[in-house]
C-alpha cells in the first residue's frame, strides 16, 4: 500500500471524521430539537387529553342525563352506546350489549326502516320517523326517531339518534278521534235539533233533526258556514205567533244569556221546546248553541194524563161513596163531596183534623186503631164503625181502607172508602129484634100450649075420678050395661088425653128449645126396644149399626118411637117382624123401618102424614103420630116416604141430614 494511498486514505478518514463530527453535531442539535418538540408534544397531548376528558365527561353527563332514549350506533346499525332511558325503552338488561338495532324493527316495517336508513346515510339526518318496534321484552311499541350521522374528518363514522315512545300518545290520540267521532255522530243523530253558531252567526255545526224541524232540504254538513242573521225572519212563518217568535229571538241574541225551556207552537200543531246557550271563552262571546226539542208527544201525554186525572177526580167527587185520605197520624188530607154529605162536615172543617177525634167515640176509636195497625202491615180491610155526624147523629159506616204509599213504597197514610150502612144496619137490627120477638112469641105459644093442655086435661081427670067414684059408690046398684058404659067413658077420656098430649107434642116439635147434640141413634133405638111395649109375637131387629147424628134427642126418640110403635101396632100376623136399617147416602142417612103388618093402600100414602088423618079409628090412634114424625124429619132436612102392600107389610123410609149443626 502506497503512501499516497495511505495519505489519501488518511485524508478521506479525516474528512470522514469531520463529516461525522458535523453529522454528530447536527444529530445532536436535531436530538435536542426533537426532545424539545417531544416535550412540547407531550405537553400539548396532555393538554389535549385533559380537554378531551373534559369534553368527554361533559358529553357523558349530557348523554346520561338526557330524558329521551339516546343511542349511538355504527353504520351497520350495531349499538355502540346508549343511555338508561334507551335501555329501558328497548327492553335491555343494561347498556353493555351487542345488538343490531335494525333487528328490532317490526317485520312489516323492514322496508321502511331500510329506506329511512338509506336516507339517513345520504342526507345525514332523519326526523320524525315513526316506526313500530318489538323490544327485547317482546313488547310492541310505536317510537318516534330523530337521528343524525357522526362524521370524523368528513367521513361518516357512526349515527346517533333520540327515540321516543309514542305508543300511548298515539292511542290517546286515536281515542280522542274516536270520541270526537262519537260526539259528532251523537249530535248528528240527536233527537233534538242542534244549531251552533259562531259570534258572526255563521253555522259551525248543525244536525239532521234541526233540518227536519225547520224543513231545510240541505244536508247538515253543507250548512257549515251559512249565515243565520236572517233565519228568524225566514222561518217565522212556521210558528203560530211569528212576530213574537222573531222578537223573542232578537231579545235572546241581544241579552246573550242562557234561556232555557222556551215553548213554541208551530202552525202544524207541533210543540217545540227551545234552549239558548251562549258560549264564552275567557269572557269573550264566541257564539251560541240553539237546541230545539219536539215535545208534542210528551205534552200530549201530560194532557191525557191530566184528562185522566180529571176523570178520576170527577168520579171520586161524584161517587156515592165517601172518600177520605189520612196521613199516618190520622190527620185528614182529603175528602170528597160524598164524604161531606155523609158526615155533614164541609171539607174545610175537616182538613188537618184527626179523623177519629171528630167522628168516633172511644169504643169505635179502638176498632179503628186496631184496623189501622193491620193496614200498616200493608193489608187492605173492611170494617164497620159507628160514627157521629156533625149534628151528632149516630150513623153506621162500612169502611174499606187501603194503605197509601209514596213513591218509595213507604206507607204514608191510608185511603178509606166510606159507605153509610145505617139503613141496612137498622134493617138488620130490625130483623134481629123481629127474631127475638118471634122467639119470645114462640116461647109464649109453647107456654100457652102447655097451659091449654093442662086446662083441658084437668077436667078429664076430674071426670075420671067422678066416674070411678060413682062406680065405687054404686057397685051393687049398677047393671052390666051401665058398668060397660062407664068403662067406655073412661076409654074415651084416655083417648081424649092422648089427643091433647099429641097436639101439644106436635105444636112443640117445630120450636127448637133444646140445643142440638150428638145423638147415638143405635143406643137410642136399643133403649127404645126396652121401653116400648112389644108383644111376644113381635120381634124387632136392627140390621146395621145406626149412626150418630146431630139433633135433639127427645125429638129423634119421638121419631123412632112413633114409627116403631106404629109398626108394632098394625102387625096382624102370627109372627111379627120389625126390621130397622140404615143406608149411608152422601149428605144424608137413609133409615128404613119395615113391618109385616096390614099394609097401607097407596092412595093413602100422602094422606097419612097429614094431621088428624088416622086411617084406623082405634082407641090408641089419634092421627097425629105420623104428622109429628114428618115434622121431625122436616126439621132434620130429610124426607119421608113409604112402600107398602096391603096385607104384606109396610116400609117407612126417611132421611136425616148429616152434620146438621
Amino acid at each position, binding site marked *: 500500500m502506497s503512501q499516497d494511498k495511505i495519505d489519501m486514505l488518511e485524508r478521506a478518514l479525516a474528512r470522514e471524521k469531520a463529516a461525522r463530527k458535523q453529522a454528530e453535531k447536527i444529530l445532536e442539535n436535531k436530538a435536542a430539537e426533537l426532545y424539545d418538540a417531544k416535550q412540547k408534544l407531550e405537553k400539548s397531548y396532555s393538554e389535549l387529553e385533559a380537554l378531551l376528558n373534559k369534553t368527554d365527561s361533559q358529553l357523558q353527563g349530557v348523554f346520561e342525563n338526557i330524558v329521551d332514549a339516546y343511542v349511538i350506533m355504527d353504520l351497520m346499525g350495531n349499538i355502540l352506546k346508549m343511555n338508561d332511558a334507551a335501555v329501558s325503552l328497548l327492553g335491555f338488561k343494561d347498556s353493555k350489549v351487542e345488538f343490531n338495532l335494525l333487528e328490532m324493527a317490526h317485520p312489516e316495517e323492514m322496508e321502511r326502516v331500510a329506506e329511512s336508513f338509506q336516507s339517513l346515510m345520504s342526507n345525514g339526518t332523519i326526523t320524525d320517523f315513526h316506526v313500530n318496534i318489538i323490544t327485547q321484552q317482546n313488547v310492541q311499541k310505536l317510537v318516534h326517531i330523530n337521528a343524525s350521522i357522526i362524521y370524523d374528518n368528513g367521513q361518516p363514522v357512526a349515527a346517533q339518534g333520540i327515540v321516543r315512545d309514542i305508543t300511548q300518545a298515539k292511542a290517546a290520540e286515536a281515542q280522542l278521534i274516536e270520541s270526537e267521532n262519537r260526539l259528532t255522530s251523537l249530535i248528528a243523530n240527536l233527537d233534538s235539533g242542534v244549531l251552533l253558531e259562531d259570534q258572526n252567526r255563521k253555522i259551525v255545526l248543525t244536525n239532521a233533526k234541526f233540518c227536519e224541524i225547520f224543513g231545510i232540504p240541505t244536508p247538515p254538513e253543507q250548512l257549515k258556514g251559512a249565515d243565520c242573521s236572517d233565519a228568524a225572519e225566514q222561518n217565522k212563518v212556521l210558528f203560530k205567533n211569528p212576530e213574537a217568535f222573531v222578537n223573542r229571538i232578537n231579545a235572546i241574541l241581544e241579552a246573550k244569556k242562557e234561556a232555557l225551556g222556551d215553548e213554541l207552537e208551530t202552525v202544524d200543531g207541533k210543540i217545540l221546546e227551545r234552549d239558548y246557550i251562549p258560549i264564552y271563552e275567557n269572557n269573550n262571546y264566541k257564539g251560541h248553541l240553539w237546541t230545539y226539542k219536539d215535545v208534542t208527544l210528551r205534552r200530549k201525554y201530560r194532557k191525557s194524563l191530566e184528562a185522566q186525572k180529571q176523570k178520576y177526580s170527577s168520579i171520586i167527587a161524584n161517587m156515592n161513596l165517601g172518600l177520605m185520605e189520612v196521613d199516618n197520624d190520622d190527620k185528614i188530607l182529603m175528602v170528597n163531596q160524598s164524604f161531606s154529605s155523609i158526615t155533614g162536615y164541609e171539607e174545610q172543617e175537616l182538613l188537618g183534623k184527626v179523623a177519629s177525634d171528630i167522628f168516633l167515640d172511644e169504643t169505635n176509636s179502638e176498632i179503628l186503631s186496631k184496623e189501622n195497625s193491620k193496614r200498616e202491615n200493608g193489608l187492605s180491610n173492611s170494617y164497620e164503625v159507628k160514627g157521629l155526624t156533625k149534628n151528632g147523629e149516630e150513623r153506621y159506616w162500612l169502611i174499606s181502607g187501603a194503605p197509601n204509599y209514596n213513591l218509595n213504597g213507604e206507607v204514608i197514610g191510608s185511603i178509606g172508602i166510606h159507605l153509610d150502612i145505617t139503613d141496612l144496619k137498622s134493617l138488620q137490627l130490625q130483623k134481629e129484634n123481629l127474631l127475638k120477638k118471634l122467639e119470645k112469641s114462640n116461647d109464649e105459644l109453647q107456654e100457652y100450649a*102447655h097451659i091449654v093442655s*093442662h*086446662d083441658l086435661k*084437668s077436667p078429664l*081427670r*076430674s071426670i*075420671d075420678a067422678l066416674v*070411678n*067414684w060413682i062406680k065405687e059408690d054404686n057397685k051393687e046398684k049398677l047393671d052390666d050395661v051401665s058398668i060397660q058404659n062407664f068403662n067406655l067413658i073412661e076409654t074415651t077420656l084416655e083417648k081424649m*088425653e092422648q089427643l091433647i098430649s099429641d097436639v101439644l107434642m106436635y105444636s112443640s116439635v117445630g120450636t127448637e128449645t133444646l140445643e142440638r147434640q150428638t145423638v147415638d141413634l143405635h143406643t137410642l133405638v136399643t133403649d127404645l126396644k126396652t121401653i116400648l111395649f112389644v108383644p111376644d109375637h113381635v120381634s124387632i131387629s136392627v140390621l146395621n149399626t145406626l149412626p150418630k147424628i146431630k139433633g135433639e134427642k127427645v125429638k129423634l126418640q119421638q121419631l123412632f118411637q112413633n114409627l116403631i110403635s106404629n109398626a108394632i101396632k098394625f102387625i096382624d100376623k102370627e109372627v111379627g117382624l120389625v126390621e130397622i136399617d140404615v143406608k149411608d147416602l152422601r149428605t144424608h142417612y137413609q133409615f128404613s123401618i119395615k113391618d109385616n103388618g096390614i099394609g097401607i093402600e097407596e092412595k093413602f100414602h100422602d094422606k097419612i102424614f097429614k094431621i088428624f088423618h088416622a086411617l084406623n079409628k082405634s082407641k090408641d090412634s089419634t092421627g097425629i103420630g105420623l104428622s109429628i114424625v114428618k115434622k121431625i124429619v122436616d126439621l132434620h132436612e130429610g124426607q119421608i116416604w113409604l112402600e107398602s102392600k096391603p096385607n104384606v107389610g109396610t116400609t117407612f123410609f126417611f132421611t136425616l141430614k148429616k152434620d146438621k149443626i
Partner: protein
Amino acid sequence: MNALNILLIEDDMIEVMKLNRTISKLELPHNIVEANNGEEALRILQKKDELPDIILLDLNMPKLNGIEFLNILKKDSVLKYIPTIILTTSNNQKDLLECYKIGIAGYVLKPLKYEDYTSKIEKLLAYWSINELKQI
C-alpha cells in the same frame, strides 16, 4: 106410720076431693089442710105453731101460682125447711127445671086414671111418713 100434717094447695075442688077420698079410702092417719091458692096458703103458714109437715103444691093456679108461691116459701128462713112436693098435670120441662132449681122435694104428675092417682098418692105418703122431718 107417722101421721102427717099435709098442706094441699089446690084450686080444683075435685082434686081436693080426690086426695081426701084417697086418704080415707086407704085409711091413712094423715091430716089434710086445704088452701085454694098460694095467697091462702101463705096466710095459713103465718101460724108458725101449726106448720104442716109437707106441702103438696099444684102449679097452675089463679092469683099466686105454684112457682111464685114456691119462690116466696124458699126465701122464708123457717118455711124453706118444709118439704114441698109438686102435684101437677104439667110435664113442661121448663116448669120442672125451674121447680128443682128453686128447691122441691118431689115432682109428681097427676095421672088421668083415678086408680093410678090413688096408687101414686099412697106411695108418696108412705115415703114421707117414714121420713125424719125437721121439728118446727
